[in-house]
């Protein structure tokens, strides 16, 4: 079997070298500067050409609470979180006992020598780092010492597992934006630890890194950076927002790329970023801008989405384009602010009181976060509707390998907008113009923008009942006609999305078993499918990338004997949406819903499906 088994690899270790196929957990205290050490390790492995993924499992806290970072290297290219890691860097005394207990047989524990920790497990290897002694040898000013202490484990890891120091230095420099002084200070500590291990410590474990050539041409980026960059290239003119984890870094990234939107002639910008007083105001601002034809977006998470629900209903009903990113975290309520989730899907698909059905895009990769970043604006303008992008903390805040992003394939599409000339010819052709007249039969009217210099251009936008001429109406027939048109529009959106953002489908196995999912579960499912195949369970696969639900889902369900809908929320929300839309029997469809706050593992997927397939 060529595939590393997520269930068995941990327990089947021997002293045969294990190269580029293992995972670390780095346990530290929040705010101790470990983010730098971990980023540098991930970047170095990436630069060595080894497929790698780093995940930050952090607390909702500024300083002191425990935080874990997992780094997985996989020569097979697997990037999902590992159920168990072979190595732990136990640098947090508060959690060390538990962290060490979690190690598999033949695991490795790296911990500070200063603790004089009892080596109670005989089935693992302990390595001790004399943190205090090493730090005493540096000439680093005492103010900085605490902040660079974590670099001692970087040096230990580098020596033990064969990471070249010069490559670590390159990654350090990149991390500090080329500032040699900061990089040198950190490097001094790394080198001291490295040299200590080289001279004094005998390697007693089988794990080792070796350079590969699997990351050439790839990039390492977070989903929030990718989404921000996509929005910049999508022509966003206004980002109105209110800080909330885990979406804040998306707006931070927009700000960092904002210079790309400076008009060289005037030195003026075509993009403003406004920090609003709350999410209500952020949503109001993007509606105001979208109404004038500008491209506007916000980024938020569950609690912010709750506050935006009234404006979302208005945008749906008054038909105003805008883009809302939901970097989903655990709810209900404040929930777990720093833990990942796919638990907002039902809420945002139906966001707004009354009969509302919102468009949702669900990126699962950084390439998609970039693409949906720009495409969401085209879809919003063409559908004259809000577009939600349901990302999550795992995609948004963690570093992922990705192919370099593809420049938008089409020019900016603003949909049905009538300028002075357009309005003239529309009236010539149809005798009159009304904002909500459906002359094309696709549910999408023609809009004029404020500032249009034509005596008939103005209309009154409202969240109250209206007729095709956009005038106030309380008549039942007008109401029904309007709702029917909005439903035609939903069908138009479904067809458009099915064409432009079709589901990812793999039916190459021609299997009886089908797996349906969305978003960031793909790495775990990919790995699980390989493993299941090795156990004789072939599976087909479909990943939904947009709502309203594509009709391909119906075909997929009908053409498989048993279907599992795998998702990372507690209630099986995608499965619920499928059951609403899918008219045939669903007896053979099973919801596999997790929702434990952590990125999904192949282990869990395999366990669930094996239990049901009985093999």
């Amino acid at each position, binding site marked *: 079997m060529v595939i590393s088994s997520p269930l068995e690899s941990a327990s089947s270790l021997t002293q045969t070298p294990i190269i580029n196929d293992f995972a670390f957990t780095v346990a530290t205290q929040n705010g101790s500067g470990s983010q730098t050490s971990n980023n540098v390790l991930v970047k170095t492995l990436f630069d060595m050409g080894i497929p790698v993924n780093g995940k930050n499992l952090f607390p909702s806290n500024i300083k002191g609470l425990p935080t874990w970072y997992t780094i997985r290297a996989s020569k097979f290219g697997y990037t999902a979180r590992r159920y168990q890691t072979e190595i732990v860097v136990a640098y947090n005394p508060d959690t060390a006992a538990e962290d060490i207990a979690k190690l598999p047989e033949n695991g490795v524990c790296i911990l500070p020598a200063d603790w004089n920790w009892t080596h109670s497990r005989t089935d693992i290897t302990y390595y001790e780092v004399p943190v205090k002694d090493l730090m005493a040898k540096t000439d680093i000013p005492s103010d900085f010492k605490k902040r660079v202490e974590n670099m001692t484990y970087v040096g230990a890891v580098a020596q033990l597992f064969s990471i070249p120091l010069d490559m670590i230095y390159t990654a350090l420099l990149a991390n500090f934006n080329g500032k040699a002084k900061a990089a040198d200070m950190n490097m001094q500590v790394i080198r001291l630890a490295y040299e200590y291990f080289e001279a004094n410590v005998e390697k007693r474990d089988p794990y080792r890194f070796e350079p590969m050539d699997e990351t050439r041409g*790839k*990039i*390492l980026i977070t989903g929030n*950076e990718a989404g921000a*960059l996509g929005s*910049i*290239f*999508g*022509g966003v*003119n*206004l980002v109105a927002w209110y800080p909330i984890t885990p979406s804040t870094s998306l707006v931070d990234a927009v700000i960092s*790329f904002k210079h*790309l*939107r400076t008009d060289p002639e005037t030195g*003026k*910008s*075509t993009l*403003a*970023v*406004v920090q609003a*007083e*709350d999410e*209500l*105001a952020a949503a*109001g*601002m993007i*509606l*105001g*801008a*979208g*109404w*004038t*034809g*500008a491209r*506007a977006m916000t980024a938020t998470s569950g609690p912010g989405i709750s506050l935006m629900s*009234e*404006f979302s209903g*208005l945008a749906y009903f008054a038909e105003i384009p805008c883009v809302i990113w939901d970097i989903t975290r655990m709810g209900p309520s404040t929930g777990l602010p720093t833990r990942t989730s796919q638990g907002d899907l039902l809420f945002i698909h139906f966001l707004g009181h009354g009969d509302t059905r919102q468009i949702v895009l669900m990126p699962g990769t950084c390439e998609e976060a970039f693409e949906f970043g*720009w495409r969401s604006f085209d879809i919003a303008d063409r559908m004259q509707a809000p577009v939600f992008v349901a990302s999550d903390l795992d995609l948004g805040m963690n570093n992922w390998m990705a192919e*370099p*992003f593809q*420049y938008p394939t089409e020019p*900016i599409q*603003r949909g049905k907008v009538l*300028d002075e000339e357009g309005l003239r010819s529309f009236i010539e052709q149809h005798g009159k113009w009304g904002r909500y007249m459906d002359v094309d039969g696709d549910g999408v009217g023609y809009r*004029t*923008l*404020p*500032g*249009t210099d*034509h005596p008939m*251009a*103005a*209309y*009154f*936008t*409202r*969240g*109250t009942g209206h007729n095709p001429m956009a005038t*106030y109406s309380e008549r039942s027939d007008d109401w029904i006609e309007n709702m029917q048109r909005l439903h035609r529009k939903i069908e138009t959106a479904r067809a458009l999305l099915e064409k432009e953002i079709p589901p990812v489908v793999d039916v190459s196995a021609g299997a009886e078993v089908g797996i349906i999912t969305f978003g960031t579960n793909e790495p775990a499912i990919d790995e699980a499918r390989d493993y299941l195949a090795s156990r004789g369970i072939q599976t087909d696969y479909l990943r939904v990338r947009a709502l309203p639900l594509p009709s391909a889902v119906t075909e997929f369900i009908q053409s498989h004997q048993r279907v599992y809908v795998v998702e990372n929320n507690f209630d099986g929300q995608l499965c619920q949406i499928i059951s609403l839309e899918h008219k045939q029997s669903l007896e053979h469809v099973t919801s596999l819903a997790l929702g434990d706050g952590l990125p999904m593992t192949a282990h869990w997927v395999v366990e669930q499906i094996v239990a049901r397939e009985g093999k």
Partner: protein
Amino acid sequence: MGRTAKTNKIGLTREEYKGSKSTLCPGCGHDSISNQIISTAYEMGIEQHRIVKLSGIGCSSKTPAYFLGRSHGFNSLHGRMPSVATGALMGNPELHAIAVSGDGDTGSIGLGQFKHVIRRNVPFVYVIENNGVYGLTKGQFSATADEGQYLKYYGKNHMPPIDLCLEAIIAGATFVARSFSGDAKQVQSLLQAALRHHGTAVIDIISPCVTFNNDPSSTKSYPYGKEHQIALHEIQVLAPDYVEGKEEITIPEYDEGEVIEVDMHDGTVVMLKRLAQDHDPRNRLQAISALEQAQRDNLFITGLIYYEEPRQTLAETENLLHASFARLPDRLNRPSEQALADVIKNFM
């Protein structure tokens, strides 16, 4: 453009500045304000497509449908007009905006947005049609209702009122005025000045509710307003041509000491002829204490209460291109393929 007796300088009749028919109660103060907006825009020769009308929810917020029928309008959510106005003027900084709100809309559910839009100095006219009562829900007290006031359905009001002019000044407004819907001349001159202001211009207009709050004992009633309004000054706006650019302004002669000249950003001069009190609107502390004093005396002072040279607007703070973004060529809204390649290199 030629003028006739019946058209303004851009050749439109007053009729062409009207909106649809009002559905408010006959005699509502709000309708008088709509009429003043119509007259002001007509007199100034405003091109309606350059204006957007915005509002929240409530009786007052219905009124943008009743004036400037050739301007785009947006009747948004309760208390949220300021954020929508902010977005609209950031989405197209070439637009001007007239927004209408009520005392419930601004003083209760929207108090936060009211203060923050002022703080950001979004350049628009913010009219509050203040009647101290919730009309559409049949007569509850609003946050501007007088302490001790009695209403038929709700009995006595035990809470002190929020003074929206005071709130505006404290929030950093650079143009704060108060008027009475029955005072057509003053409302019009304040609107004229506000339309030329380079920042958020707040006009709190006491506008009696003929159905729920017109008892002579209420400070928001017609009889009370007529008796207790103290106009601080007579206002005259001497303006360069709104459409065709600046013309020389000749200032008529007033007696020294009786006239305050307020120079506005676009070259307009607002002449304030002192009446009842010695009030200089350029003095923030004096404006605050005048409002305090009036509240204690159960009076309301009207006119331009506070004015200062406006600071940067939000679009200026953001160094925003003065343009309608939807009409810009793609190259200004989307960086080049090379720019993407350059950024991507940093992530390799």
